[in-house]
């Protein structure tokens, strides 16, 4: 049995997963305290992780019907993410593992998102193209085996896709985090009402969403307050369409370039219905994990841990965290 911990952003997560990829417990405690700040505040997130992690761990073990004595491995996200937040999870994981002399698997958060597709009775067949899009990251990867060394073939040069949703939502007065609210508003709008840039002219597999946000800002200024309010749904639908097209376009290019025949998506943006249906049109089988495995969770970390070389006691006692993703990726 694997106990997994994830605290890289603002969700305090613990899960118990078997070596075979069965989820026995997957506990997610969302902080919901950052909305009034318009974004996740690292110091506040870290304080909440510390407050919550003990009961989240208890909860996960109880639901799994397990005790610390039943564990074979402890897994934890070491990065990328907010350093102060990651430290709460890593300190807890090291202590639990050391207290029972268990091995510890250091897991990369993005490997976790990819590994969400390895859970369940029928894991996706290799190789496949993985599109991870969330508030923290946006990337395309060629996944040829289940280990952490998957090949990142495209990534965002500025904002993440989820960030673009949230920033657009804020410009439209939908508050933070506004991705889901924007999607709801867009249901009543015309996605072709406004032409927002989807980065068609930008070659390659990398993403850029900063220009899109600026385009929306200018359009709102041009329209003026009254007209913006009247056409909010159209703005939302057109803006959403641009993000979805930017993602779909690069996924198409990536499938062509790599010859891969399967596509898996993950990350919070994978919840977006318009994105899902657009990607289903690409002509390859699309794997979408259940929602609670798309957004940040610890079950995916436990899943990834099965394909990581674990560190045995006492090798991991000096383990540190890392903020950026450069540590574990091969870039081509």
């Amino acid at each position: 049995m694997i106990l997994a911990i994830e605290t890289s952003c603002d969700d305090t997560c613990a899960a118990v997963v078997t070596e075979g990829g069965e989820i026995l417990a997957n506990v997610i405690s969302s902080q919901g305290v950052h909305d009034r700040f318009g974004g996740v505040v690292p110091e506040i997130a870290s304080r909440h992780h510390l407050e919550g992690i003990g009961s989240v761990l208890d909860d996960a073990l109880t639901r799994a019907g397990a005790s610390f004595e039943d564990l074979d491995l402890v897994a934890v996200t070491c990065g990328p993410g907010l350093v102060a937040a990651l430290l709460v999870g890593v300190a807890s994981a090291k202590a639990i593992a050391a207290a029972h002399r268990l091995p510890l698997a250091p897991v990369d958060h993005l490997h976790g998102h990819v590994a969400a597709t390895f859970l369940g009775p029928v894991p996706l067949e290799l190789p496949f193209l993985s599109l991870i899009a969330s508030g923290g990251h946006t990337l395309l990867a060629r996944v040829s085996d289940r280990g952490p060394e998957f090949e990142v073939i495209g990534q965002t040069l500025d904002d993440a896709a989820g960030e673009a949703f949230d920033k657009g939502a804020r410009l439209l007065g939908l508050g933070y985090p506004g991705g889901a609210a924007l999607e709801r508003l867009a249901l009543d709008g015309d996605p072709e009402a406004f032409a927002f840039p989807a980065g068609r002219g930008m070659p390659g597999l990398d993403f850029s969403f900063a220009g899109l946000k600026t385009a929306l800002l200018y359009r709102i200024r041009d329209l003026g307050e009254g007209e913006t309010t009247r056409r909010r749904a159209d703005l939302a639908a057109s803006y959403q369409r641009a993000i979805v097209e930017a993602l779909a376009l690069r996924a198409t290019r990536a499938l062509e370039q790599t010859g891969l025949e399967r596509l898996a998506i993950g990350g919070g943006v994978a919840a977006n219905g318009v994105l899902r249906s657009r990607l289903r049109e690409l002509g390859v089988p699309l794997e979408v994990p259940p929602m609670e495995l798309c957004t940040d969770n610890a079950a995916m970390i436990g899943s990834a841990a099965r394909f990581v070389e674990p560190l045995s006691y006492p090798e991991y006692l000096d383990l540190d965290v890392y903020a950026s993703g450069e540590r574990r990726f091969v870039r081509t």
Partner: protein
Amino acid sequence: MTILAFDTATRATTVALSTGSAEPVERRDDPARGERPRHTTRLMPMIAELLELGGVAWEEVDRLAVGVGPGTFTGLRVGVASARALAQARGIPLVGVPTLQSLAVNALACGDRAGTDVVLTVLDARRGEAFVAAWRVSDLRGTSPGGSLSGRPAGAPQALVGATVAGPHALSEIARRVGPSTLTIGEGAVEFREVLEPSGVSVPEDDSELHRVTAINHCRLARQIPDGDLAEVRPAYLRRPDAEIALDK
């Protein structure tokens, strides 16, 4: 009683193991001024090293003690998260030791240093401020180096000045109030020497061991503090997050 104690509130990482009536054994890491703390990478290896050295298995640890600050936020969280997880994973009682109080116990090592009635403890709070608290030395006596508590009621001694954040002006006010027979110690005492000494208190040499937070004192205090719910052992931040303060403005 076997007690494992550690503190990560200051730049230092200090771990101590107390078995039976013997003097506690300490491992510590002291980054130089300006160097980053190494709590994350040094704490657990030093804990493992001390347990190994003492031939102590986890099931033999009767009590854990962790410094709850005030101090650096990230350092405090590393210490408290580690302590709670160890306690949770092994079912060991945990107590939170106020770091300033543990520091104050250093004053007892001076013996009956003539004219020292009060100990003022000062830690660097950055941004030109200090974390500060004061005790009457006589009130700390129950925490004698031998660990004997005979004749003293359980519970922590009452502070003369409760832990607070102070800028230079407030700090000199506090120093004046506690009077000239005050021993002033801690890395913050060194940092604010120019403010403190003109206010009449005495600050030992910069390199004096009296300025160091040591988990050996935590071991002593841990006997006096009752343990309770793990979740109640939390950092004494003393400062709200900047984002919250900014939002209120």
